[in-house]
């Protein structure tokens, strides 16, 4: 595996690293982790429990790669090292649970419904404190398709044929996002093809050091999606999208699949990216009455795919104004794949930090292009008593398409203004 250019120890990555920001200890920074890995590889440093802890603390958020002036591919170095971490001891229970869920998404659906039931009984505050269930989405996020279809089918066909990646976890927990993405794409003349039998993209396995299993899962998806004759594969989950863009290097040595993997990696788009690329209809009636709206960068969109502008364009079109920026927007919320299950204490610290930034922004809606971040930030916001609604930008756009202000809504808005 190509691990890129050497680290020159300049330290410019430090402030970008969430764990360094929390702990202030350089062994918990990218520079420190690289230094440790090099010393372990050189046989100078024992691969002991403290060394493992510093390395396992990494969120793989890739913020250091954006900060690095030398072009060090930190993720590649970390991924190369992960099998050693995995071999050193059994996987943390949290990660095992997360991997189990990728095989049996039904478990997640059950958890999500249990959570909803508890919320209906008025027990959300309590439920938010529970492990696992605390992360499940709240009552505001509908589990079933609403049955509404988006207003007037807009413009002519774009001629594009795409498939939506049925992200295993994302789709089970927040099927509304996938549904809205589909409707928004179709509304803009992009044909969405059903490709049955898709599996997990493999990212969670790769990040657990099991590159073989990740490659198996990737191969399955590559075969399936490449055969479907698509222009693009569209993701609504940042982590999956970032990992699929690495399919080419993951499967580079597979003589049969390397070509298809390269095609698929090149054809992967985030939903906001494709909408901006192909052109989309701005909604006739943007959601101007939903209070202040902020946008938060999901790490794997910002640092993993360099997608920062497009979700803001979508959000701006949906709400009719420039979204606010959160303080420390570039800092990971602590969700990070299955990190919040494996390293609950650091994940919670980062979650609280993000919730505090959300509270300080006074936004009533936070748009985030990744379901993992949505769940994590929502949980910590609720625990902190912050009632902001968390939505994927594409959900906001779908809502704007659907909800042109009806006369009734317009009059109720008027009455609100009068009351003031």
């Amino acid at each position, binding site marked *: 595996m190509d691990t890129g250019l050497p680290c020159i120890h300049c330290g410019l990555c430090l402030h970008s690293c969430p764990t360094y920001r929390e*702990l202030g200890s350089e062994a918990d920074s990218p520079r420190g982790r690289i230094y440790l890995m090099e010393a372990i590889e050189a046989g100078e440093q024992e691969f002991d429990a403290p060394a493992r802890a510093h390395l396992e603390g990494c969120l793989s958020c890739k913020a250091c790669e954006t900060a690095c002036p030398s072009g060090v591919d930190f993720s590649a170095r970390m991924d190369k090292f992960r099998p050693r971490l995995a071999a050193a001891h059994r996987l943390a229970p949290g990660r095992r649970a997360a991997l189990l869920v990728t095989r049996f998404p039904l478990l997640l659906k059950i958890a999500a419904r249990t959570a909803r039931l508890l919320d209906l009984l008025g027990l959300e505050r309590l439920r938010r404190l529970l492990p696992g269930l605390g992360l499940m989405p709240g009552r505001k996020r509908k589990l079933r398709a609403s049955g509404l279809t988006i207003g007037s089918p807009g413009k002519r066909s774009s001629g594009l044929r795409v498939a939506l990646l049925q992200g295993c976890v994302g789709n089970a927990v927040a099927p509304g996002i996938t549904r809205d993405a589909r409707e928004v794409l179709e509304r803009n003349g992009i044909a969405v093809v059903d490709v049955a039998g898709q599996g997990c993209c493999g990212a969670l396995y790769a990040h657990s050091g099991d590159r073989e299993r990740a490659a198996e899962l990737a191969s399955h998806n590559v075969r399936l999606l490449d055969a479907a004759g698509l222009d693009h594969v569209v993701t609504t989950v940042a982590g999956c999208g970032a990992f699929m863009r690495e399919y080419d290097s993951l499967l580079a040595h597979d003589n049969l699949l390397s070509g298809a993997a390269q095609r698929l990696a090149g054809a992967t788009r985030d939903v906001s990216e494709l909408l901006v690329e192909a052109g989309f209809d701005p909604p006739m009636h943007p959601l101007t009455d939903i209070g202040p709206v902020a946008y938060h960068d999901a790490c794997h969109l910002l640092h993993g795919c360099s997608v920062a502008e497009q979700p803001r364009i979508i959000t701006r079109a949906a709400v009719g104004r420039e979204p606010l920026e959160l303080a420390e927007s570039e800092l990971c919320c602590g969700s990070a794949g299955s990190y919040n299950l494996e390293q609950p204490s650091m994940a919670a610290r980062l979650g609280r930090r993000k919730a505090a930034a959300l509270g300080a922004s006074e936004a009533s809606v936070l748009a985030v292009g990744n379901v993992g971040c949505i769940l994590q930030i929502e949980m910590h916001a609720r625990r902190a008593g912050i009632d902001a609604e968390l939505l994927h930008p594409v959900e906001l756009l779908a809502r704007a398409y659907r909800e042109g202000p009806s006369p009734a809504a317009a009059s109720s808005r008027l009455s609100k203004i009068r009351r003031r």
Partner: protein
Amino acid sequence: MSNPPLDAGLVTRLRRMLGEEGLLTGEAALRVYECDGYTLEKARPSLVLLPATTQEMSRSVELLHKAGIAFVPRGAGTGVSGGCLPADIPVMIGTSRMQRIRRVDIDNRRVEVEAGVVNLDVTRLVESDGLHYAPDPSSQAACTIGGNVAENSGGPHTLKYGVTVNHLLGLELVLPDGEVLQLSREAGSGGFDLAGVVTGSEGTLGIITSATLALVKTPQAVATMLAVFPGVLEASRAVSAIIAAGLVPAALEMMDALVIEAVEAAYGFGFPADAGAVLIIELDGLAAALDEQCVQVTEACNEQGASEIRRADDPRERALLWKSRKRAFGAMGRLSPSYCTQDGVVPRSALPQIVERIGEIGRRYKLRIANIMHAGDGNIHPLLLYDENDPEEVARVLDAGRDILLACLELGGSVTGEHGIGIEKTELMPASFGPATLAAMADLREVFNPRALCNPHKILPSDRHCVEVTRPRPRGGG
């Protein structure tokens, strides 16, 4: 090389006060503290303390002072002269957990922040009020205010705005015995300017725990220009011509062909492939005046043989141009596995001579040397490229670096513009200052730091310089 272990009772007391996260022990946690951005020499501390408040800092220092144990402060470890190298210093004290913003006073254009606050975050804090913190070292996205004050850091915009000391209104300093001083230097404070004395003292007079900083109004308009020259000599002459025309650019930076090659590979700005040198010229002020000044700059550059001059009007293009410049050091990794950044100063008029001398030295030692310069104030940064797995080449790099700095002295300049003396340049101090001046400096240090417990062996030459010079190690890349 490691320092000896510490008394267990003392460590226990410190841990009780600072908590588990405030005290680091063990090989895995300490290893990275062996060096900062200057990697030629290494030494590992036995203990790292990360106090979170001034009180914790003061108590920690007091305990160490009582026990007679030497300590060295560290900010973000982005320094490049080994100023926080723990050579014969058992304890390192980091400011990374001192993160509070103590006061934001927009009306009086000042902020008070703790030592661990990052330079760029100060500007982020006040930019919506049309203000910014002017000193902008290339590492500003990571380096901390405490470190900036200790090094009296500069940056590309110092030509017009000055360095850290010109923006410093006050300091909180923990003396090497633990006592806390509040040092104000706002107008009318009276007394000696002790905060000024501490600025640039590289952690040898005490540990800075907070600083009050002056903010500058963000200019109404900015014009950033790029001028391309056939070589460094022509570009150096253009620098003098611009200043002679009576202009004070906000920044006036030069990059030579090797640097351009590296940053082009890294950021793809679109520098012409055959450029021998480029100048980045930034003018700021009232919008109405800028067009005329741009014409003057263009004329000065054309007279010195510029092959192309363009103005980056698009903010995105301007940002990319500055990114190319500010991250140029890091981009050098694309040309060479290691490099050593030198830092020297010559009078602006002597830029053509020093460029020629650097060329000669490179040829003599068979080294590739790239040049970045804050050309406006004669501050040169030759980058000596080498491979650290080649000990013989490392030796040539050290010799060539010394020769370049001696050439700076000969031309009437100095051995450091902004990176400090640290541990790297102590041996050059006798060549830079007369014995009486050096003795006065030693006396000053004696007043603040009588037992030489706070960052010993730095700045002034010392006979105890016992560190491990880096030895070759396989690289992780590949």
